[in-house]
């Protein structure tokens, strides 16, 4: 009985709401943007940095009156599904978003395997997506057409760049510690030959499993070898362990590198000043004044979420949204026109200009950042750097 009553009441309310909408003269129909998100499962902890960036972008666009669709302003709405950290689910979700939900635009999911998994779906339905949080040489094997990769952190470029940065910073000997997961291994395969080429001797070389709980054994041998550089090709979970235990053992190398992890907000919360002067992978800093949108993005993100944006996982999604936004403003929602626009134009983002050739961003250089006094500073290459490399003198 009460169920029936509430239903009538709900439909009455709905009718009233409809009337109200009709009354306010043709309010613009929302633009619906669909994507899958690893809300649960293995990658769930990476998802919020990306989701936050998308939400910040949406709120900013809506606050400015809506998304400019070739001259007409329309509010933005998200259609989001949980892919449970499973690429196969992402494939089904993108099919559903395209064929059943009939969304107007698509955003990218999180991570390389997900980008690779949905690429054929996008190809089949001829639906363009600007990718973001994917980095692998495998991306180059993706057929160019409906997906683009925003990052410049591709391992075959990163290896040589890191070796050059190390050499320029006075490194003659190095320890290379590598997580067994694919991205770290890929970087290592390009880093080792590059170090040799630069004349840097590798004195300790160790692989370790992703679920490692104690690094005392590895780091003791690093300490004994006393190299100039410790290049730890970490993932987020072990990046904390590495830094904590390097500090405990008092590793004295002036050049300390940790691949993924240091740009996560929690990293500095856990390590405090010990995180200072650690070098890591990213190609963005809020302090690069040549990119006028960088600092406002940083400030808006901090104001909304009360923590710093991840220099990779928040920045890249925001960039991809900016690129899509600018393309839609020019050519509207027609997918073929959008595709041609994204493939050919140059876009202004918080990370400076971006232009694609094939699937790759060819403007942003491969870069490295360092945490200096709690701030992310670009230290490589010279063309975009915001600060000089500082040797790590204490933990």
């Amino acid at each position, binding site marked *: 009985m009460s169920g029936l009553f509430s239903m009538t009441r709900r439909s009455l309310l709905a009718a009233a709401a409809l009337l109200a909408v009709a009354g306010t003269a043709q309010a613009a129909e929302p633009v619906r943007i669909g994507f899958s998100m690893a809300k649960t499962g293995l990658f*769930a902890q990476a998802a919020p940095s990306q989701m936050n960036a998308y939400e910040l972008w949406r709120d900013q666009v809506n606050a400015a009156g809506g998304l400019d669709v070739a001259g007409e302003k329309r509010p933005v709405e998200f259609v989001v599904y949980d892919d449970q950290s499973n690429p196969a689910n992402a494939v089904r979700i993108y099919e559903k978003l395209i064929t059943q939900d009939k969304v107007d635009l698509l955003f990218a999911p999180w991570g390389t395997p997900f980008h690779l998994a949905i690429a054929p779906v996008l190809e089949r339905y001829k639906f363009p997506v600007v990718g973001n949080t994917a980095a692998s040489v495998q991306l180059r094997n993706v057929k160019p057409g409906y997906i683009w990769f925003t990052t410049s952190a591709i391992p075959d470029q990163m290896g040589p760049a890191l070796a050059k940065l190390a050499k320029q910073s006075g490194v003659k000997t190095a320890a290379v510690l590598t997580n067994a997961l694919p991205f770290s291994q890929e970087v290592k395969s390009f880093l080792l030959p590059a170090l040799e080429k630069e004349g840097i001797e590798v004195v300790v070389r160790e692989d370790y*499993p992703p679920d490692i709980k*104690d690094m005392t054994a590895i780091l*003791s041998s690093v300490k004994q070898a006393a190299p100039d550089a410790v290049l730890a090709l970490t993932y987020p979970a072990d990046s904390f362990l590495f830094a904590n235990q390097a500090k*405990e053992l008092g590793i004295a190398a002036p050049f300390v590198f940790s691949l993924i992890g240091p740009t996560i907000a*929690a990293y500095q919360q856990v390590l405090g000043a010990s995180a200072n002067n650690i070098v890591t992978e990213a190609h963005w800093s809020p302090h690069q004044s040549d990119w006028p949108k960088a600092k406002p993005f940083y400030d808006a993100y901090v104001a909304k979420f009360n923590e710093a944006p991840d220099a990779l996982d928040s920045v890249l999604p925001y960039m991809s949204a900016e690129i899509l936004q600018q393309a839609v403003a020019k050519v509207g929602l027609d997918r073929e026109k959008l595709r041609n626009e994204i493939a050919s134009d140059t876009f202004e983002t918080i990370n400076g200009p971006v232009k694609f050739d094939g699937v790759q961003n060819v403007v942003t250089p491969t870069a490295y950042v360092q945490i200096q006094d709690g701030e992310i500073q670009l230290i490589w290459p010279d063309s975009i750097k915001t600060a000089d490399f500082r040797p790590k003198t204490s933990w």
Partner: protein
Amino acid sequence: MDQLLSGQLLFAALVTGSFYAIVALGLNLIYGTLRLLNVAHGDLVMIGAYTAFWLLSLVGLPPVFALPVAAGLCGAFGWLVYRGLLRKLLSNPQLAQRVEANSLILFYGLSVILQNAAALAFTASARGYRYLDEVHHLGAVAMTGNRLLLLGVAVGLCLAFWLFLRFHLFGWGLRAIIERREAARVVGVNVDRVQAITVCAGFAIAGLAGVLVSMTEQITPFMGFPFTITAFVVIILGGLGNVTAGIAAGLILGFVETYGMALTSASFRSVLIYGLFVGALLLRPQGLFGKAVRGA
């Protein structure tokens, strides 16, 4: 060789081993007394970790004081779970026959609920805080304050439990139930009460372990599962339901892992842990310290 004999490695092995021991302790109590497969055990560790994080961030309570709070919270939750879910399962003789399989499903559901409730309430962002992260030197051995605290609490807890089971009347009752359930009831052990307290204690110890681990690791809603796996490996190694053997097995696992990695390579971690596990199962299926069941 120097490295193998160093106190640094010994410290690392003790920290890892004693942590494994307390993670497994709670699981072992619950399995031993109630034959319940608590696959949500790691998620209670997660609850403990978040308790420490929020108490520090919201009211500034130092994590060492979060230890009793997390234990109390998880213990209270254990009591609710026992009264609400488990008691029925155990008191109905038909259900009690299949209690292990049923509890697996029940706790799996609980695990999914806990993880996703935490993700919903706290978001899945990794959290962390700094606490006791200064480095102390004892001779040539460097020790971070929080790892030293972990070692102290874990060893204290293991010792306390061992003494309790050995010398306290309640401990005797507990051991009686573990060894001969029906006989314990006959001689007047209040099985229901012992069971309720055991579940509370098991949950509380997991919460404690969570506070300790949150001092050195990042905190996420999905951090618990690896702890569940570790705990199962330890208690199967030691012999299911054998609480003191479980403590010893945790320490052994920590030593094998740490020294094994130093002798071979870190990439052999899984080979070492599961090698020991499989080897023990093949040679001593009743556990390293278990007694073979006669005439079963």
